[in-house]
């Protein structure tokens, strides 16, 4: 494998990782505040749908290269709206968080495809749109391998990488992050200190909708160009896995997301390796999932979930 192919492999890896990075960062916001979010899959679906539709109409209105950004904005808005269902059920009505997350997955699958058929004359897929173009960063993109791999990517990929660092900083170095984490670890103590538990949790869940929405948008605006029933197909669950694998830490989740992205990218390149001819392709596809389990067994061990994860907050039970 030559250096150029290596750069392309790195590039494809990042393209596939981007959506997972956004969604798992979203999951971290929600779960750090103490609300399980099994609905990431549905929230990504909302985002992918909104981006496809918003992007299509913006392109139609002649907005040119700004159209995908309109798509992203729509995805953020719809993601937040979708996450509110989860927030209302699980925070205000204290229902089981796993259940209301599952509700999101169902409502998203149903309503997005229903809307697609309604808006586009019974078609099962949105019309193809242009989406984002790759942007080469002057100078840096000339570095061998890394230039081709990292500095010649979609704007969403740059955004994802920047957000990993920003969110790490916000979560661990700012008062807001401290409050969010406190609410997920020990809500009654946080309440005693004057933190509004439910309000923080609403913010956490809404941020998860926002981020997962962008994640879904990335898929339609960089990889598929359309939204249909199999646009997301399990990415949200992989994002959950990435979040847990990364121990609810943005840097860890980033690493895990890149790992899963690599596993998707390697399929496009696997025939370039001479040794791969003797191994059935299924085993190569399996590697990341088996490896994840092995890494968990060997190194990571017990998951460090936020202590109050999954428990509705009831002030009377202090």
């Amino acid at each position: 494998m030559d250096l150029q192919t290596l750069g392309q492999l790195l590039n494809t890896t990042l393209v596939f990782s981007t959506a997972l990075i956004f969604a798992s960062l979203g999951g971290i916001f929600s779960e750090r505040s103490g609300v399980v979010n099994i609905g990431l899959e549905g929230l990504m679906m909302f985002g992918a749908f909104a981006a496809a539709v918003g992007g299509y109409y913006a392109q139609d209105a002649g907005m040119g290269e700004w159209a995908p950004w309109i798509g992203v904005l729509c995805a953020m808005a719809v993601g937040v709206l979708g996450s509110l269902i989860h927030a209302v059920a699980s925070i205000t009505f204290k229902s089981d968080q796993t259940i209301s997350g599952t509700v999101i997955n169902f409502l998203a699958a149903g309503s997005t495809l229903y809307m697609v058929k309604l808006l586009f004359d019974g078609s099962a897929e949105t019309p193809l749109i242009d989406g984002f173009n790759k942007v080469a960063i002057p100078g840096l993109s000339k570095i061998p391998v890394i230039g081709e791999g990292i500095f010649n990517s979609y704007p969403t990929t740059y955004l994802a990488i920047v957000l990993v660092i920003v969110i790490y900083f916000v979560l661990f170095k700012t008062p807001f992050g401290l409050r969010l984490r406190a609410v997920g670890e020990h809500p009654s103590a946080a309440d005693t200190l004057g933190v509004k538990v439910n309000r923080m949790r609403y913010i956490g869940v809404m941020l998860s909708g926002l981020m997962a929405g962008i994640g879904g948008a990335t898929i339609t605006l960089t990889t598929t160009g359309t939204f249909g029933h199999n646009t997301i197909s399990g990415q949200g669950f992989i994002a959950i896995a990435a979040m847990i694998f990364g121990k609810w830490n943005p840097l860890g989740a980033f690493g895990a997301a890149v790992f899963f992205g690599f596993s998707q990218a390697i399929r496009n390149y696997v025939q370039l390796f001479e040794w791969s001819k003797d191994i059935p392709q299924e085993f190569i596809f399996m590697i990341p999932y088996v490896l994840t389990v092995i890494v968990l067994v060997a190194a990571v061990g017990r998951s460090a979930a936020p202590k109050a994860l999954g428990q509705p907050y009831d002030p009377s039970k202090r």
Partner: protein
Amino acid sequence: MNKFKKIFTTDSYIIPFVAIVLGFLVGAIVMLLGGYDPITAYSALFTRVFGNLYNFGEAVREMTPLMLTGLAVAFAFRSGMFNIGADGQVMIGMTAATVVGIKFAALPGFILVPLAVIIAGVCGGLWAGIAGYLKAKRGINEVITTIMLNWVALYLSNYIVRAFLLLPGQNRSEDIPASLSMTFLNSLFDNARLHWGTAIALAAAVFFYVYLWKTKQGYEMRAVGYNPHAAEYAGMNVGRNVVKAMFISGVFAGLAGAGEVLGVFHYQSVFAASPGYGFDGIAVALLGLTHPLGVVLAAILYGTLTYGSAGMSFAADVPPELIRIVIGSIIFFIAAQGIVRWVLKPFYFKRKKEKVL
């Protein structure tokens, strides 16, 4: 009679019922917003399922794997675990049943079929058991392991079918001689693909109930699910219970897989993507409030709605995806019982007043 009346007026029965009504209402509103006629659509849905024997039989066929995967997810839930991996366990069960059915085809049917079903169940159980074991021994979150195992199961099944069982030139296995079909019922139902898996599913529901509520082991399992720390303090082996619960959960899912390949398709395809049985199972388990009777009823409801949704799109042009909105809303209202209680409040008030009079 009084006892009967009491069953249907307690909260746990009223709330699902009201949730179902509210779910249908939400669906109707969504249809009206989309410019469709909800009455035509809903009546087409039910006519498709109950209109003729063939479709009714097919709807029952559709309910069968839902019951088993619903039971699988519910059983794990009762023991304090979230089994997202029913999908993979179904695939492993399918593959095991296919392998046994094809490779041991020389055996007489009355040995071959039960053998294939049992091995499918055991393999599904062992597959889920991996996640249980890793949780018990290493504290690894079962959500992540079961998601990973779903993918591994998908590729492993595809590999086994492609490498050992392939019908030349096709993307599926050879035909399986072993069969769970109920021939006498098939002809009765106009060749609907009814099979013995339905009986297995109902038996599994009975087993679920008896095991969990009538045996000591079941009591331990519920105790561990309710509060693992208290259970451990009471001298129960939490780890062993976790593994056992996941195993039984996986057996249910594996049996669902056996029913699908031995009773419905009679061969196994190479899957392009996960077939989604497990995710339907999550919905069914939640709709059924993780109680075996509830799960059976929920599978009937879920199967009716999904099978009937095709009729809805023929007759009223409503996209069948609408039914997912209805199901999602029903689960939402069951989960957010506060909303349902709020809707019911005026009725409760009235009833109390009548009592005073």
